Each structure stands twice: as structure tokens, then as C-alpha cells.
């Protein structure tokens, strides 16, 4: 039995999905997020949706959370002490010297996560090649331990220069701290990341120490409460770099959970692409405050090996999800120079868009869409009913300033938001040398299916997929997560046969380490390769057999040149070098059936119509209004249409043909025309 619960905690809503492996049945629900104690929202959703025997019969609990991220955002982490090499006390504060807002004369970096007095230096030095330049003075560690105790430090980060090349001093420091009686969390930089760049690695180490206690306590509370409800399966949490890990591992490696939430949607998109043969995709996940987009190639989200959050680098695998501040709650306004702007400020869930009638008076994207008829009647299954007068009044304030009418203002808001989202999608695809016209658009999140047709038209994309449970798709995506773990080592070597043999040695060691922690099914390896002298490397997936490379140096050089040509349009013939070796083990959960399409036959009576604005026809048209569940598998329908479902609404413009795929996906095909 592989019954699963997926819970994705977002900023506004906690999304719940339950999958019954025997029947393939799926149930979904949304409850408000409980920011102070996020586990309460999770448990509320479970209590509302499942019977005790269902909880007891659940094998996997899969989770996406923003607990770690919120600890950083709200600066409510542990009291951290940091040990660094003498002479390098200020790595966190000096950073790289750049300005996040480069045109802002007054920009100053936010205070470092560890104040200077709790950054203690140690006499020791390792060289870039790993040789000991100066042995470590253990007395410095003991003195720091005493000081940290006086300061009430509960977690210690240790990040010595060049520790990626030789971890001996960090390991000795840990032993000495324990010998001195420190019983709290210790994070060593070489365990967090085997890569060079001291600011990035030190920051990642500190982030881990900073969020670990909170994350750990949260996961323990959640696990205990799940246990009380009879859950005796395996709880897993999504990593920032994709895949999932056990709660136990997440308590050890908390820094890997920072963007767990947005990654769930990207993982789901990858799984859907693989399961339904959708091919390459670009995602449009539109929530209340943000728009997230991700490129899915060959059924996998694109991975980076460094992320960034609240301006801090995180040196760990990171699914390349780009966010901009544009969502259903984004507020429209007129700037000082007289141009209409949308976002990044959001009305959020409280007060929410003006049409929610909860006290919001500023016009939002949702108000604009509603006034244009794009949200249908405005009565939702959740019980929410939108108020047209309030939406019109809010839009009127902006329209008055611009001397245009409310409808034109509403159309402008939609167009500006769509253009901003399309730019982000264009950048994420074109940067990889991929033409978006050859991709399908996967639209999900509460407002994604509303924006799908506008985005596809901006980018000349021929096909849109609105997945099953589109409004809760991130939670649904969790159910498909693989259990993964990755290790990486920086080792710069010229790409030749001896390097191939060195890589095989490294892989053997790393897979052995990983095997000690995981029962692995599949082993994968990625090599960072670059032209000699270049810095930016490309991540090359290399074929393995029994954990060893099956390509020789010439074959690897070819793979690198192919990848380079795709990315940059020309084929290098200079010598290349290997920079880092990354080993991953992946264990797939048992394969899941796709959800059946409920497919109650719609009958023959023509669907009701209502007027809505067509962005293609540039005029108001009659749109069919249809409930998604009334469209059986194989059904097709010609736009314009508004398709409603429990947690989202799909806007289908003129010239788009709806086809209900047996997989449960609603496909929109561009038949062109602006009739």
C-alpha cells in the first residue's frame, strides 16, 4: 500500500492532497496557513479531510514548508557563534562588496546573521591545495567555547578557509568544542558544501546553524502529532534541490529545505511531464503574491548548484525557480511619472483584493480579472462571492488618475502583469538557449490558469496544459517526489584520462558515503566542466554503470562541447577542465497511477454563456461557462470559455481549443485566429 499525503504550506494557504493507492482516488482541500505554528494548519487539513483509519493507512507523508525560509525572513533563528580563520573575521559582513540595489546611494547590507562579537577567530590556516600552512591552536577553540557559553550561543558554525580542500581543522575544532562541553548544534562548512568560495560557503554554514533548531523542533512536533493520529509511515520533506529527504535528515541538513515550498510545484511539473509524455515545459505558478516559473527539460526541473534567498547565497543544489512579485493580490498604482505599475506590493489574504469585500480598497490583479469577466460569475465553491462594485470602485481610483475608463485600466493591469511574467519566462528559457515557442506552458496555482492564455500569446506558445488539481498542484506534485541525496567535491583537474580515473575514485568514495546513509536504487553523477581559464562551468550529466563513468575523456569532452553549443551557439575547441564532481542517489517511491478524470457526462444542453473580455479579439465576447468536472476524458470544447473548478478558474480565449486528456490534464491548443 502506498497511500500518500502531500501538504504544501504556502504564505496564504496550506494545500492538502491525499492519494489512495488502491483506488487511485484523490482528495484535495485548502485551509488558511497558521504562520506561527504551521503544523496546526497541516493537522487541521488532515483532521478535516481524513478518517483516522486513512491516516493510519498512509505510507508516506510528503511535505513542502517555508519554516526555514521564514526563520531567515523574520530573523528568528538560533543564537549562533561562528569560528573562522584568523584574519577573516568579517567574511559575512564584507560579502563581495556589491550593492543589491545598484542605483541606490544609501543601500546598506542587512546586518549579518552573526554579530561581530560572536564571530571568533582561530589561529590556523590551510592552503588552497589542502596543505597545512599553519597548524591550529586548540586553545583558541577553548577560549571561544567559553565566550560562546557566556553569550548564550545555542548553535556553532565552523567555517575555515580552504576547508573544502582539507577538513581536518574543522573536524578537530568540533572535537575540541565537544571536549569543552558544548552540547548544542555544530555545523561544519565542509559538510555543508565541498565547494570553494568562502563567503558563499560560510553563509550557507551559518544559515544551517541559524535555522536548524527551529526546523528541527517544528518537524519533531509535526511528527509527534502525526503519530498521535495513528500515522506510522515515513515522513519526507522536499529539498531545495529537488527530491525529498527524511525528517531525520532534514533536522541534520536544514539548509537544504529553504525553498522546499516552490520546488514542490517544479517537481510535480517534472513528474507530470514524465508520466504523461508532455515533453519540455515552462511552468507558470501564480499564487497570491508571487509568480514562480521553472523550465522542465527531459522531465526534470533545471538545477543550479547555488541559490539565493533574501540576498544571501546558499551553496547547495537549488531548483532554478524564478520568482517575481506578481500574483492575484498584486496591487496596481500610478507612479510619480504617470505610468501604470502592477506589484510587487500585494494585498495578500488580508485584506485581500477589493472584490473580496474584506476591507481592501486598492485595485489588484484579481479585481481587474473579475471586472473583465475572466473569473466567471464570481461565486466559488469555497463559498466566497466576489463583489463587483468594490472591484470597480478600487479600479476607478487608478483609472481617474490615468484619465481612462475602468475597463481599459483593468485590461492594462492584466497586460502589464502578463508581460512581466512573460519576461521572466523568456529569460529563464532563452538563457538556456531554448526557444519558448517549442515548449508547452504548464499553468497552475490559484491564478495560473487565469493567466495561461495571455502568457502563451506573449511568448507565441502553441499549447497550454492545466494539470489536474491545478489550484493545489504544488501539494499534488509532492506526491511524486523521489528520495534523493547529493554530495559534491571541488577538485580542479585537466580533462584527460587520469582525471576520469580520479573522478571514478571520488565517485566511489561519495557513493560509499551515501550508501551508508541511504538505501539507494539509482546512482547519478554530474560533472561541472568548464574551458580552462573560464569560471562558469556547465553541469554535465554523465552516464554511469556500477557507479563508474562509461565515457572516456574524449567522450566527456564531446558531451561538454554539445552542451556548450546548445547554451551559447558556438562550439569550443579549447581544452576543458573538471571543477566539481556531484554524486546523487535517488530512490523512487512506488509508481503512482494518474488520477482518473471524474468525467460526468455533460449532457447535450449547451453550456451557459456570459460576457467577458477577449484579449485576442480585443472586444467583449460571449464565453461558455463550464465546470471542469463536467468535461469527461476525450471531451473537447472551443474557446472562448471560462472553466471553473474548486480551487482555480481557467480563462480560455478565442481561438483556443480545449481537449480533455485521459491523463486528467486539460490541454488548450492554439488554433490561431482572432475571430
Amino acid at each position: 500500500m502506498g497511500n500518500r499525503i502531500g501538504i504544501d504550506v504556502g504564505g496564504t494557504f496550506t494545500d492538502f492532497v491525499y492519494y489512495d493507492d488502491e483506488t487511485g482516488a484523490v482528495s484535495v482541500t485548502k485551509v488558511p496557513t497558521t504562520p506561527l505554528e504551521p503544523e496546526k494548519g497541516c493537522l487541521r487539513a488532515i483532521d478535516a479531510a481524513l478518517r483516522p483509519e486513512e491516516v493510519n493507512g498512509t505510507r508516506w507523508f510528503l511535505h513542502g514548508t517555508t519554516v526555514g525560509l521564514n526563520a531567515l525572513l523574520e530573523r528568528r533563528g538560533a543564537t549562533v557563534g561562528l569560528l573562522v580563520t584568523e584574519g577573516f573575521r568579517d567574511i559575512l559582513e564584507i560579502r563581495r562588496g556589491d550593492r543589491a540595489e545598484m542605483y541606490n546611494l544609501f543601500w546598506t547590507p542587512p546586518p549579518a546573521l552573526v554579530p561581530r562579537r560572536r564571530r571568533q577567530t582561530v589561529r590556523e590556516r590551510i592552503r588552497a591545495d589542502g596543505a597545512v600552512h599553519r597548524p591550529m591552536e586548540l586553545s583558541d577553540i577553548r577560549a571561544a567555547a567559553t565566550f560562546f557559553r557566556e553569550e548564550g550561543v545555542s548553535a556553532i558554525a565552523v567555517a575555515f578557509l580552504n576547508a573544502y580542500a582539507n577538513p581536518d581543522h574543522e573536524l578537530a575544532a568540533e572535537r575540541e568544542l565537544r571536549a569543552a562541553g558544548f552540547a548544542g548544534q555544530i555545523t561544519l562548512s565542509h559538510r555543508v558544501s565541498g565547494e570553494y568560495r568562502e563567503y558563499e560557503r560560510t553563509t550557507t554554514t551559518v544559515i544551517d546553524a541559524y535555522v536548524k533548531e527551529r526546523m528541527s523542533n517544528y518537524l519533531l512536533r509535526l511528527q509527534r502529532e502525526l503519530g498521535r493520529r495513528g500515522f506510522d509511515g515515513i515522513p519526507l520533506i522536499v529539498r531545495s534541490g529537488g527530491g525529498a529527504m527524511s525528517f531525520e535528515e532534514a533536522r541534520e541538513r536544514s539548509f537544504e529545505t529553504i525553498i522546499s515550498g516552490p520546488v514542490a510545484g517544479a517537481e510535480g511539473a517534472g513528474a507530470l511531464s514524465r508520466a504523461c509524455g508532455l515533453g519540455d515545459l515552462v511552468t507558470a505558478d501564480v499564487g497570491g503574491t508571487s509568480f514562480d516559473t521553472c523550465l522542465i527539460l527531459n522531465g526534470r526541473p533545471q538545477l543550479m548548484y547555488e541559490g539565493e534567498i533574501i540576498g544571501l547565497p546558499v551553496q547547495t543544489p537549488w531548483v532554478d525557480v524564478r520568482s517575481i512579485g506578481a500574483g492575484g493580490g498584486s496591487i496596481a498604482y500610478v507612479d510619480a511619472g504617470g505610468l501604470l505599475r502592477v506589484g510587487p506590493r500585494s494585498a495578500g489574504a488580508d485584506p485581500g483584493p477589493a472584490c473580496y469585500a474584506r476591507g481592501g480598497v486598492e485595485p489588484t490583479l484579481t479585481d481587474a480579472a473579475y471586472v473583465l469577466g475572466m473569473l466567471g460569475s464570481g461565486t466559488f465553491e469555497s463559498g466566497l462571492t466576489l463583489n463587483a462594485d468594490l472591484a470597480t470602485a478600487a479600479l476607478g481610483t487608478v483609472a481617474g488618475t490615468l484619465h481612462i475608463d475602468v475597463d481599459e485600466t483593468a485590461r492594462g493591469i492584466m497586460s502589464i502583469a502578463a508581460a512581466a511574467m512573460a519576461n521572466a519566462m523568456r529569460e529563464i528559457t532563452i538563457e538556456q538557449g531554448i526557444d519558448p515557442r517549442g515548449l508547452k506552458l504548464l499553468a497552475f496555482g490559484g491564478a495560473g490558469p487565469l493567466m495561461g492564455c495571455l502568457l502563451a500569446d506573449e511568448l507565441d506558445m502553441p499549447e497550454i496544459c492545466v494539470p489536474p488539481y491545478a489550484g493545489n498542484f504544488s501539494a499534488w506534485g509532492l506526491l511524486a517526489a523521489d528520495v534523493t541525496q547529493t554530495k559534491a567535491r571541488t577538485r580542479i583537474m585537466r580533462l584527460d584520462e587520469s582525471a576520469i580515473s580520479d573522478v571514478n575514485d571520488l565517485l566511489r568514495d561519495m557513493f560509499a558515503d551515501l550508501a551508508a546513509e541511504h538505501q539507494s536504487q539509482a546512482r547519478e553523477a554530474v560533472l561541472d566542466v568548464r574551458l580552462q581559464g573560464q569560471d562558469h562551468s556547465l553541469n554535465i550529466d554523465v552516464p554511469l554503470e556500477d557507479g563508474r563513468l562509461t565515457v572516456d575523456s574524449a567522450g566527456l569532452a564531446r558531451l561538454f562541447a554539445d552542451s556548450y553549443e546548445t547554451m551559447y551557439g558556438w562550439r569550443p575547441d579549447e581544452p576543458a577542465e573538471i571543477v566539481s564532481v556531484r554524486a546523487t542517489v535517488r530512490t523512487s517511491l512506488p509508481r503512482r497511477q494518474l488520477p482518473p478524470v471524474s468525467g460526468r457526462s455533460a449532457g447535450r444542453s449547451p453550456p451557459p454563456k456570459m460576457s467577458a473580455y477577449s484579449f485576442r479579439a480585443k472586444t467583449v465576447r460571449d464565453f461558455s461557462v463550464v465546470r471542469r468536472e463536467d468535461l469527461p476524458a476525450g471531451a473537447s470544447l472551443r474557446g472562448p470559455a471560462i472553466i471553473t473548478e474548486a480551487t482555480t478558474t481557467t480563462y480560455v480565449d478565442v481561438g483556443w481549443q480545449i481537449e480533455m486528456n485521459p491523463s486528467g490534464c486539460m490541454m488548450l491548443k492554439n488554433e490561431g485566429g482572432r475571430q
Partner: protein
Amino acid sequence: MTRCTENLHVYGAAPSRGARAGAVDPITTEIIRHSLNSAANQMKRALIRTAYSPTIYDVFDFAAAIYDSEFRLLAQAPSLPLFMGTLNFCIQAALEGVGGVGNVSSGDILLYNNPFGTGSHPQDAALVMPVFFDDATIIGYTAIKAHWLDIGAKEPYCTDTVDMYQEGTIFPGVKLFNAGELVRDIYGIALANSRVPKAAAGDIMAQAIGVRAGAEALLRVVRRYGVPLFERSVEQMFDHAEASIRGYLERIPDGRYVARGQMDNNGVDAEIVPFDLVVEVDGSDVTVDFSGCPPTQNGPINCPLPSTVSASRIAIAMLAGSNESPCEGHFRPLRVITRPDSMFHPRSPAPSFLYGWPAMQAIDIIYRAVSDAMPQAVPASSGGDVCGLVWWGIREKTGEPWATGSPHPVGQGASSHGDGGTLTHISEAATRFAPTEVWESKTPWLLERVQLAKDSCGAGKYRGGLGIDFHFFLLEDSFVTTAVERTKLPPWGLLGGHDGRPNAVRYRRADGTASEIFGKITGLKLRKGDVLELLTGGGGGYGPPAEREAAAVVEDVRNGYISEEYARRHYPHAFADGTPE
């Protein structure tokens, strides 16, 4: 728009076309503005991902921008501000070099690096691509000016040149790509004149990839909206930017504000070179007048006109531009007056290798002048320089030549918003200095220290940011050029705030002997075991130290930013009971 009166030269952007531009809606304009900024970002991404030199991919020593057919700035990617206002000059000069706009065709990419057209030293080479709409008409240009590690100056980096011919090989506007095909002859000449040809080759190709990416992105925008609507929207975008910046400038009291700056020396002679600048504010019009500056200098601290204009544009755009990415409209309220054959308007073949250093000083001095009018509008002085070091040598084991360089952060001035931080000079706001671990993996040094320097800040109600002490321990013999200014004029405070420590460089030989403090030196040979120390300046303070909260003083002492002795001297009020806390 240029004109000369009474031997003075006046430069300003062309004014708005007003109603002649035709009506357009504020929505399309906003969409096009976004798309153009996104296009410039795509250029930047393409460049940094393909570049060879850390100066480009890690330090971001380049600018990438898109111009319209009349050389007006449409969008610039967040990159080196000092290059910001110069690329229109580069494009026009590059076109002149190939015989005018009639001599270019689709797929051409021009190479141009004459200092008097780029505003920079020859290492800052511009690639310019005319963007053809339907292969017939030019609808704009994409340009990237990037710092090449070496293009054949007398040394890889110089502070003592006496004419342009010592500063590098000049490409006076030539076709590097002809109708899409690489011109092997030109390419070969460029590589043959570089001490690091591999890096030069990689960086040239990366720049070409970047301008092409920008051209494609610009064409996508124009095709989507059609030429007429695109052009009308661009006019409105410029007008919008102009209105927004004028709204700010209106708030500065009208008047004529004079401030004095200085260069430590001109790189060849020993004397201090003082200069006066005038900032005149009249309603929302601003004039920066360099005509009172000294004549063209014997050494390389002359700043060619494009960089003089750019420095003024940066100063005004950052002051009044609401943190927005700049476009042509931001430049319209500004006029720049210069005197030909002066330090800020030299003529060929005057030496100008260190053009950026007087340009940086110009920015600081413009703000010093503005502080007379509106002290809350600007920060106190920072360390005032990028504190550049350029290193080279031959690796002992492999015999391979190597070269690298980086700017270094300085303490920033405090302001009405609070204490200063430690960042790279505002003229290179997007550049980053290289990580120690990356440096040590590639170069024969060991960094003994990269740490904030206690007590280096200027005291005040808000204190300046701290400077940094860098100690480079040499593992092999190497050469270094230090291009460090402001070792004599300390970072000034504002409204009673104190000065910070000035920049300094010195070295210690392995035998224990130490040098005097200096700023600029070319090709200093350091031997294995020597230590070079770069001590970057601290920021000036803002407001009287007596107004600093006692708790903030105590916190600074506890964190080791300042010593107790320094605290007692500058903030006695925090010790009212004899001891802090």
C-alpha cells in the same frame, strides 16, 4: 547635443519631442520598458556565462546596453555604472571608424577602443552591433564595453603613461564580424597584441555572444509591437523618466554650489592636483561645470569627455533617479560644461589610462557640492576609490603567464539614513571583489588578512563604514600595479561628522624592511615572502559625534568595530558614568 561657446564645450542629451512624438498609452509603454530592461539582462547573462576573465564574470567590469537608432539609451543591464553614460559615444565613434552608418550591414559587429571615443583606457573595448529590422533599416544598437585583461599597454596596468600610444593597441572602429563572419585578420591582430591571448579570445567571443543576444531580444520587442508603436512608446518612456527625475531635482534649492577635490598626483609628477567643480541648479535643470579644472596632465589622470559626461550622469541619476534602471530620459535635465585641453576634456594623444580615477573623484565632488544645498540628500564621503590592484607574473612550475585584478571595497559614508557599510565605490556599484579561495586556487598568494579595520571609520551621530585591511603574502615572485587614489584627502564627514581614514598601500619585504605609504605604482616587483598591504579607507561620519546614542557606541565597542580608547576620545558622553554600559 554639443556646442562650443567661448572655448567651452557644452554637452547635453537631446530634449523631449513632446507632442510631436504622438500619443501612446501608459500601459504599452510600461510593458515595453520592462521588455527592454529584460533584453539588456539577457545580454548580461550571456556575457558573464561565456566570459574567460574573472574581471568580467566575477567582478562584472563591463556595461551592456541597448540604444535606439539615434544613440539614445533604451536600457542598461545592472553592470558597471561608470560605463553607463559612455556607450552612445562608443557607438557613434565606432560607426565613424567604419565610414558611417551607410557602411554597416546586418550581422556586422564593430570593435572600438579609442580612449577619446570610449572615455576609457584601450583595455575597455566596445563591441557594437547595429540591429537591423527586416535586414533593411537600423532600429537600434546593442553595445558591450568590457575590460580586457590586456591589449598591449607598456605594462598590463599602468599609472605612469605619458601618451595614448603607451596604453594599448587601438582599434579605431573596425569590423570584427562582417555580415556574421568573423574577420580573422582583425581577430588575429587583437590576440597578437595581448599578453594573455587566450583570455582575450574568450572575452571577445563572449562579448559577441552578448551583443547578438541583445539584438535578438530587441528585435523580438520591435516585431511584437511594430516599429511605429515601439518608437512612440520609447518617446513616452523617455519623457516619463525625465518627469520623474525632474520631480526630484525641483526639490534641490536653486543655486551655484562649488566644491574642491584633488588627485594625489598625476602619476608622473609628485604634486597634488586640486580641481574645482560647480554644480548649478536652476529649477529642475542641473549644470555640472568642469571648466575650472586644471589643464591636460602629463600623467594618465586625464578623463576623456565621454567619461566626464558619464560621471556626471551617474551622479545625477543615482541621486534623483528613484533607484530605477536609467534610460535616456534620466539624462535630459543635465548639461555638462568642459574646457577642451583640460583634465576633464583631454585631446588625443593625452595619456588617460587612469581616466576612471578622476571620474570617480568627480562623482564624489558633485555630491560634495550637492551636500551644501541639501546635506540629507547624499552620504558623507566613502573611501572614495575602487582601490584597484592588478597582478601578473609567470608561474614557477608551469611557466605560464597569469594576470588578475580586482577592485576592493571601502567604508561608505554615513548619511541621514544611518551608519555606512563597507562596499565597492558607487561608481562600480555592481562589481564584486574576488573570493580569497578562488584567488588562492589560481594565483601564487596567500591572503593573511581580509578584515575590517578597527577605528577606521569617521565618527558621527551616524558613523562611517569601516575600511578593510588586505595582507597579500607572496608565494612566488609577482608584479603588481596599484591604482589607488585618495591617500591624501581623507573621506570627509558631513554636518559635523568626522573624517574617516584615507586609503593606503605599503609593502614589507621578507627581510623585514617596509616601504612608505603610497597609492599609485606601476609594475612593482614583489618577491616570494614579501607582503603587500592594501588598507582601504573608512567612510566619513554624519552629524556631530556627541549626538550618537550611547547604546550604539557601547555596541560598537563590544563588537570590536571601535576600540574603547577611540570611543572615549570621540564619544565621551557614552562614558558619563565612567564606564560604558
